[in-house]
């Protein structure tokens, strides 16, 4: 891992082919670091823990068996009839 040390207001530039991503250190308060991102729209930026959480949920979802789903679908039909 490349480690860079930055002060408030300074930034880091990442270049990949013809794309440039700029990350600016905006604030550092009581252990909370605020970062600003400048990147082309097609580059998606996520909070790491959210991405990992979604990956975990997706992996748990594929364990749902057809038979369990068949049993459970009735939970939704009740509300429909009203």
């Amino acid at each position: 891992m490349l480690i860079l040390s930055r002060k408030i207001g300074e930034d880091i530039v990442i270049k990949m082919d013809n794309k440039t991503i700029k990350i600016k250190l905006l604030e550092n308060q009581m252990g909370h670091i605020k970062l600003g991102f400048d990147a082309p729209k097609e580059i998606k930026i996520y909070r790491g823990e959210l991405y990992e959480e979604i990956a975990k949920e997706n992996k748990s979802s594929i364990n749902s068996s057809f038979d369990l789903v068949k049993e459970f679908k009735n939970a939704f039909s009740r509300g429909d009839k009203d």
Partner: protein
Amino acid sequence: MAKYETKIGEINIDNDKVLKFEFGLPGFDDLTKFSLITPEETKPIMWLVSLEDKEVAFPVIHPEMIRYDYHIDVPSDIVDYLQIEKSDQAITLSILSIPEDQSKITANLVAPIIISTINNKGIQYMVESEEYSTRHYIKDEMKRNEKLLKDKEGD
């Protein structure tokens, strides 16, 4: 027309009807070809099945069935990517996790699947929202819906 082995059985599908998830899904970044299937036996729950890995199929449902006031804003770059002009040109779905204990069934409302009926492209979009999370217990949401609907009737 091509034949595919999927988790919920063999399906035949026209090549131009295959849903393209060019960015994959978190946890399944290499899978890009899917189909949305609605078996009679599990309606209203549908299945987003991988056409490349027959172990992978997600039970999905319209999020309005979990929260009838469900609402997300889709940013313009995603709208452009999906080539949608009106909201009825997109299908929004929530992934369900259905373990054996029915009281622990959850829906992911923070990362819905959005499929374009115009170009058959799909993505799993991450909503920046405090309101939604990856695990909403269905039993709690059903109670919430009932309460909201009752309050509405009272008006």
